[in-house]
């Protein structure tokens, strides 16, 4: 699992690459835990190369969502593969998190 951060003005984009499971979730957790994240207006999660997510990966996003919302930081997922989106759907997380198709939509969601 590789996480690449791309800051641009008021937006931080995190590119996820690989499989997010109970072994690799700590990498993402470390990234989302950084205090400077709260200085952005948007945190965009580019899921194009995210090929798998388990409950441990979902749990990392869930555990940071309220903290980001409280700081008025919007977290938006985009470029999500169907099989990964399906995991969000199974739990109903697709209605609790902002998931859009393209990066352009993510910039305005």
């Amino acid at each position, binding site marked *: 699992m590789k996480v690449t951060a791309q800051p641009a003005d008021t937006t931080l984009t995190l590119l996820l690459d690989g499989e997010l*499971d*109970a*072994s690799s979730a700590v990498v993402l957790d470390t990234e989302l835990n950084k205090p400077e994240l709260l200085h952005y207006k948007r945190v965009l999660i580019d899921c194009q190369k995210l090929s798998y997510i*388990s409950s441990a990966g979902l749990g*990392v996003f*869930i555990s940071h969502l*309220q*903290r980001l919302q409280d700081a008025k930081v919007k977290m938006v997922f985009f470029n999500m593969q169907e099989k990964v989106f399906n*995991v969000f759907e199974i*739990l109903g997380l697709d209605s609790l998190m902002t998931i859009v198709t393209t990066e352009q939509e993510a910039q305005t969601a």
Partner: protein
Amino acid sequence: MQDQIRISCSRQNLQQVRDFVRSFLLAAHRSELLVNQVVLAVDEVVANFIIHANGEDANQFLDLLLVLADHHLDIEIEDHGSTIFLPLGKVANPDLRAYIQQGRKGGMGMALVSRIMDQVEFFERNSHTVCHLRKTLAS
């Protein structure tokens, strides 16, 4: 068609488990969506056994058996550790809004498993915990 694998109780081995299940089902020409769901269900149970039942003790091991018949897939995961681990019934329908407010990380794995698989059982056999998962398949 059947296959089996033995792994030690390290979360580093979860990738190996997923690759094993994925290869087995893709060889049986199952859809990518179904394959991912079954891989996820197995990953969740195995992660629970490794982390919660065995405390990531790499000296302990699990056996995983996959049996594919015409209309169903049976999966058996046997934990050779000494702790009897029966996690069902804990969180079948997690309140995710509450989880978000609490910043909670865990508690969704078994809910995923029970929604993906048609049958989920944990039972004791020879002083070990066994998990049996069954998925009915379209022919």
